[in-house]
């Protein structure tokens, strides 16, 4: 069966600051990151939709010990944001001192741009992720 939205298509769109997801024609749920079937009802009749990219921070951490190859990024803030459309998505938070972030940011509204992990010898090429900032 064909993918309605492959990782490659999702990734290329994100590099243009477009967050794509899938809307189920059966149950109406929005699935992002993409899957081959709806995250709620497992139906496959879905259409690609562009999401707002805005949401609010559900949780966060500041990373001080990096994986091999990403040492220069430290310290960096990872957030999980709940999008206005419902799904949760993982990205980084910018525009704030990583050493000063506290639980006070949980629940704060964010807007989205993107950053690209250029890939390393283990990964399958470059991979974009949302880069959030406080709205």
């Amino acid at each position, binding site marked *: 069966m064909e993918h309605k939205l492959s990782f490659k298509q999702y990734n290329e769109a994100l590099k243009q600051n477009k967050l794509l997801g899938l809307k189920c024609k059966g149950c109406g749920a929005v699935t992002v990151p993409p899957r081959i079937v709806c995250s709620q009802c497992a139906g496959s009749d879905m259409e690609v939709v562009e999401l707002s990219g805005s949401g609010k921070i559900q949780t966060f*951490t500041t*990373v001080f010990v990096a*994986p*091999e*190859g990403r040492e220069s990024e430290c310290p960096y803030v990872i957030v*999980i944001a709940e999008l206005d459309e419902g*799904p949760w998505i*993982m990205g980084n938070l910018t525009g704030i001192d990583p050493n000063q972030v506290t639980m006070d940011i949980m629940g704060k509204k964010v807007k989205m741009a993107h950053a690209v992990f250029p890939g390393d010898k*283990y990964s399958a090429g470059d*991979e974009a992720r949302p880069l959030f900032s406080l709205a």
Partner: protein
Amino acid sequence: MRKVAVVGVGMTKFSGKQEKTAVELFAEAALDALNEANLKPKDIQALFMGNVLSDFAEGQSQAQAFVADYIGASHVPANRYENACASASAAFRDAFLWVASGFYDIVLAGGSETAAKMGTPLATRTFAMASDSRYEYPAGITFPGVFALLAHLYSRTYGVPLERLKKQMAQITVNSHYYGARNPKAQFQKEITIDDVLNSFMVCQPLQLYDCCPFSDGGSAVMMVSEDIAKKLTSKPVYVAGVGQASAGNLLSQKEYLPRLRSRELAAEQSYKMSGLGPKDIDVIELHDCFSIATLIALEGLGFFEYGKSGEAVEKGETKIGGKIPVNLSGGLKAKGHPIGATGTAQVYEIVRQLRGECGERQVEGAKVGMTDTLGGDGGTLCNIILKRGW
């Protein structure tokens, strides 16, 4: 299904970087398990091995076939289980199912890992491969990172102020080191204090060094046989009363449940249902304390305490010997060490020895039923095993 018994267990000392290969570590544990069971390598009909990172640590894949040859179980079917940190428990469960089904009578299950050998940067990178490479790793996620995200979520969801939660988490580490100091196989045999934990360096806010298990090398193995063979081999067979396994997608896909891990709740339910037992029947547990916060989440998901309340139970000493449910008397992943491919059957090793009354000053007197809980990735695999005295 037939009854299946564990009749021999073995494990190497868990450690930091050392000289032996993953094949050698597994073989060492396997021979100890065989000898304890009064079985010979040629009795083994199939081998089930947990191993995650030998491709990266040693340039060695398919270690299971080399192990079979190395220990003299030549040409037996040998399979590798890669379920991140739950690999050996997944291997154990499948080995159990094959004997229970009647297809095999005598099998070897276990695992080994040489993760410490890799050093922190490469180990951190390769452990992160157990998260979603497309939708989590680009943001720089690491495993301390996953549990740091859950710690903040736990604090907010249950209204436990972070400062108090961190002290509860520190107490978990202190307990692990207390028991680890009494386990000659543990990587860290040294007691520490709450201040040591709270003064250690920050890894991923709010998790500090002592909130995190170490990278470790080690191997563990168990011999499992059918009931009729067990009766001939030993007067102290430990029966597999229940098993459970469940999976989950990346952390984002689990949004309805977090900080609870749905895969644990499903796996635990399976193991309780199969055994006809419940949390109140468990005398001792080895659970997946990869990070201190993970212990709190596990205790609640397994049904020992209400959601958001396990930290209070830890404060009251309920997870130590004499408390409601003694937890990780081996020292747990934190102090005993966490060679990920070996961890699940090392938990079984401790429970079997607890049920046999062989644990010295960390013994739960009269323990009849024990349980293991092993988590792979950010909930991607969860296995539970309930073991029961057969005498």
